[in-house]
């Protein structure tokens, strides 16, 4: 994704009107897609005086990085002015375990459902797929009560658990489809040699499925990092993820809004998934494609 593709096929010897129109369209579209990112960036580097003049697309007169510093370590959410770094670390604490656990369980599920198929496999798979489609709103209130009974409500462990439960359908599907394509003989031969369920999984299947582990992890990481709803409902005031904190900072401030600081905080929230996207483009694409198949 970071390397530029070489043009393929025969290159037209001269630019025809059609080609010019084509490139004009592509470049205009690219500008449309980039404009918001550009606007965020320049706004975050301006002083409030300059922002009040109302040239939203103009480059900053002087580069002013103070908004970034405030956004990271001084932005206020209510009376607490500790910056988005609080939300950043909360998001890390939520996302990392949720990704590791959901991908592990999903991989085991996919393996068991495709190569072992114990009784009820089809039913369980059907339940998972149906569950993956249902809007979360119907689960929320009872789940809050359930987690409260388990003393997990308003805790990092609670949000992680909810993310794992709602991540299972897609991760299971990814791994099931991956393992289904593996010749059954491989598994049978290992069984004849006396290897059991876990040994075949750990020594044969898991090493084979490293690409799928990457795809599933990236998909889950961006999904959970970008989540708003589950973090809002289950994390509790002390563990709010970055997205929820960002929204609170921007949309519930009293007095004049500090747009430069807001935009810096917004970029900081977007930067992790964006970095993953730019550096792992191919894996990201595969996750997107798999997600589309799920629909």
């Amino acid at each position, binding site marked *: 994704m970071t390397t530029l593709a070489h043009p393929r096929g025969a290159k037209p010897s001269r630019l025809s009107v059609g080609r010019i129109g084509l490139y004009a369209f592509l470049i205009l579209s690219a500008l449309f897609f980039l404009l918001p990112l550009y606007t965020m960036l320049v706004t975050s580097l301006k002083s409030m005086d300059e922002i009040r003049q109302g040239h939203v697309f103009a480059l900053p007169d002087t580069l002013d990085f103070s908004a970034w510093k405030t956004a990271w370590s001084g932005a206020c959410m209510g009376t607490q002015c500790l910056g988005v770094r609080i939300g950043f670390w909360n998001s890390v604490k939520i996302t990392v375990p949720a990704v590791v656990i959901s991908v592990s369980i999903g991989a085991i599920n996919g393996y068991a459902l495709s190569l072992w198929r114990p009784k009820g496999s089809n039913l369980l798979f059907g339940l998972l797929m149906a569950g993956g489609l249902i809007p979360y709103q*119907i689960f*929320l209130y009872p789940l809050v009560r359930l987690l409260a009974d388990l003393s997990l409500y308003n805790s990092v462990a609670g949000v992680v658990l909810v993310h794992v439960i709602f991540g299972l359908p897609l991760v299971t599907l990814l791994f099931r489809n991956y393992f289904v394509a593996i010749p059954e003989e491989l598994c049978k031969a290992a069984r004849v040699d006396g290897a059991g369920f876990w040994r075949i999984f750990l020594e044969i299947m898991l090493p084979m499925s490293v690409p799928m582990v990457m795809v599933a992890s990236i998909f889950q990481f961006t999904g959970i990092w970008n989540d708003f709803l589950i973090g809002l409902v289950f994390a509790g005031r002390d563990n709010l993820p970055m997205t929820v904190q960002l929204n609170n900072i921007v949309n519930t401030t009293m007095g004049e809004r500090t747009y430069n600081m807001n935009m810096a905080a917004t970029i900081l929230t*977007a930067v992790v998934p964006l970095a993953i996207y730019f550096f792992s483009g191919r894996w990201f694409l595969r996750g997107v494609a798999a997600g589309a198949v799920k629909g």
Partner: protein
Amino acid sequence: MRAKRRRSLAATFALLPTWIAAILVYIGTMIWSVRLSFTDSTIFPSSNYVGFAQYARLFKNSRWLASLENVLIFGVLYVGGCLALGFVLAAALDRKVRFESMFRTIFLYPYAMSFVVTGLIWQWMLNPTLGIQATVRALGWQGFVFDWIVNRDMAIYTVVFAGVWQGAGLVMVIALAGMRGIGEEQWKAAQIDGIPVWRIYLSIILPQLGPALAASGMLLSMGVIKTYDLIVAQTGGGPGYSTEVPAKFIMDNLFERQNLGLASAGATVLVLSVVMAVAPFRYALAMRAGRMGAHR
């Protein structure tokens, strides 16, 4: 025989956590919520059954009705917009252009960002006093008006902008993959017949991408029903109820307005609408997947 059973016992055991999650969370909580929708619960669940009274209340609630209308407008324009723009972008990239991968990266990057971030960016750009409107006025066009985000009649369309900006790349990727799968012979045959390129995309390529586009349309539609964070971040449902959506109505009634019964009725309606929208499509896909699986 016994050894085999013991081994598959390990597989059953490995699936146990998922069974618990599926039964307790997916089925259990759903039944609980549906049950609540037939009670007069307010702050706390009550077991005083009132039949369909909450549903009757729901469909007399002007805010709920407004949210249904909004989600319909948003859904049609958002899904349609993403499909149209995504397809056109894919067709343009399919014309053997230079820097294809750079363009592709640019068109898809918004999809990696959260709805909260998307909503906040557009809220800022559309801000009437300091955003696009102010910029154009500062350039000398004093009468320029672009205040959609604070205009009751137009605010919902600003959410559509943001949504299409975020989601069109997904369709582009899926459509482009489909176009690359179409054989060279069809192109040659069509070109020998002298059919113009745009006509080939519209009449020959588009029909063949039907299933892929339907799948991405389905994915986007599911997103429409769940739309919540984008609205919360960009407009907060306002001005007035003009961008209110069902998912937000339910959240507000669950956690702020203490209307547990009403919110549960709304959530049940939401689930029913997903089932009605998705069931036929999924069934067809499952049949096709089953046939493909048999060929392996």
